[in-house]
């Protein structure tokens, strides 16, 4: 699998787009989606919620387990992906595209975000 170069990555396996107008898009990586198996339920934060880097803001339920969804940054939720709530399999089929999870107005960043190459090395090890 290849991790898109233009994104940055958390060690909790979220990806984060560059902040356009201060707003970044967040999803989980293909590596994480593969590890989860078929995702069957996603619980996302609500628009207007304040999120904190490294803290849980939702959950992803797969056939075998449930995983916390963490925000990679401090910020305020400005949009959530209703398509993925309606069809959680988008997380598996298009984790970097249609399976995005939420958009956040970034007010502070987690220090340890990785580049694509660093994340690839991180998940290989």
């Amino acid at each position, binding site marked *: 699998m290849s991790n898109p170069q233009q994104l940055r990555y958390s060690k909790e396996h979220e990806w984060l787009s560059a902040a356009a107008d201060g707003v970044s898009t967040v999803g989980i990586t293909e590596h994480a989606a*593969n590890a989860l*198996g*078929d995702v*069957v*339920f996603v*619980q996302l934060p609500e628009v207007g919620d304040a999120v904190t880097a490294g803290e849980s803001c939702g959950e992803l*339920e797969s*056939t*075998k387990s*449930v995983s916390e969804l963490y925000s990679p940054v401090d910020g305020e939720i400005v949009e959530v992906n209703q398509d993925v709530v309606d069809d959680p399999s988008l997380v*598996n089929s298009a984790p970097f595209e249609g399976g995005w999870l939420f958009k956040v107005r970034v007010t502070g960043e987690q220090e340890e975000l990785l580049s694509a190459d660093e994340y690839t090395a991180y998940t290989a090890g």
Partner: protein
Amino acid sequence: MSSTEELRHTALDALHRSLGATMTDFAGWDMPLRYGSERDEHTAVRTRAGLFDLSHMGEIAVTGPQAAALLDFALVGNIGGVKPGRARYTMICRADGGILDDLIVYRLAETEYLVVANASNAQTVLDALVERSAGFDAEVRDDRDAYALIAVQGPESPGILKSLTDADLDGLKYYAGLPGTVAGVPALIARTGYTGEDGFELFVKPEHAVELWQALTEAGAGVGLVPCGLSCRDTLRLEAGMPLYGHELSTALTPFDAGLGRVVKFEKEGDFVGREALQEAAERAAAKPPRVLVGLVAEGRRVPRAGFSVVSGGEVIGEVTSGAPSPTLGKPIAMAYVDAAHAAPGTPGVGVDIRGTHEPYEVVPLPFYKRQK
């Protein structure tokens, strides 16, 4: 088994890796969890056919003039009454009635049985049978390394197997097994399984496993057979309402507590391990119904997991033993032990505590899914 110990590998290990399987540690074995999407694998078994490597299951041969008498003493079922060529679902219990394992016993010949134990309990069952064989003219042999086990399950499985064997599959009933040849390989062909579908389990020598797997793959290619992992095996058996040791069954429960008292055959001749305790358990169950194993179907989409509390009116009334999203029903389902007062299908007000939220669930009879015959 601790994580520092070497995982055991089946004869099909390299093949699983070449197929891109996600592997998992299961009872000390490195087993395929899934090859692609577990939901697709599940659906394939329900509608077409699936191929499973079950070589981790524990085979124990029991032979000799008193093999039947030994098994009647060691297990709770009437094993002497099984006709050669047939198989029976049974249990092995402790003296206190607690379930050590659930088993399938094949009677291969008059004085020859094959006992198949769960991987996680194989050593326990072997030790118990050896211990209980004292004084019987019978031999208990660890045959775990003698067999690879491949299952082909699903509505297309009879057709697939027929193209590879001359054995009389039409004459082979459910819960029966006969020796034969499949794709040129000697096999015990058993019409058993753990998916709720028609299907076969093929016991072969490990050195024949790859050859047999590949022959089945080729024979099933035209009708949509796919390799399947343990993940979909679990959702298949859950939909079919079949108990899993460590979830619905444990040493803390007798067969009567598990709603499976029918497997205990008090009428058989002679004593058997657990008889006295099981008599008491049967009387207790008759006088005061224990918690009942029921099905729960979610109204929402959050999935109940083993150990979650079942609640009603703010009170804990039971516990989930297995839960998963059901690919066939399209909703989360669970098996749970609940107080008898709340066990009737349709009982209002039942929920599952899912990480602090009481999600509504409907009580339904088991199984969730029954195949059309």
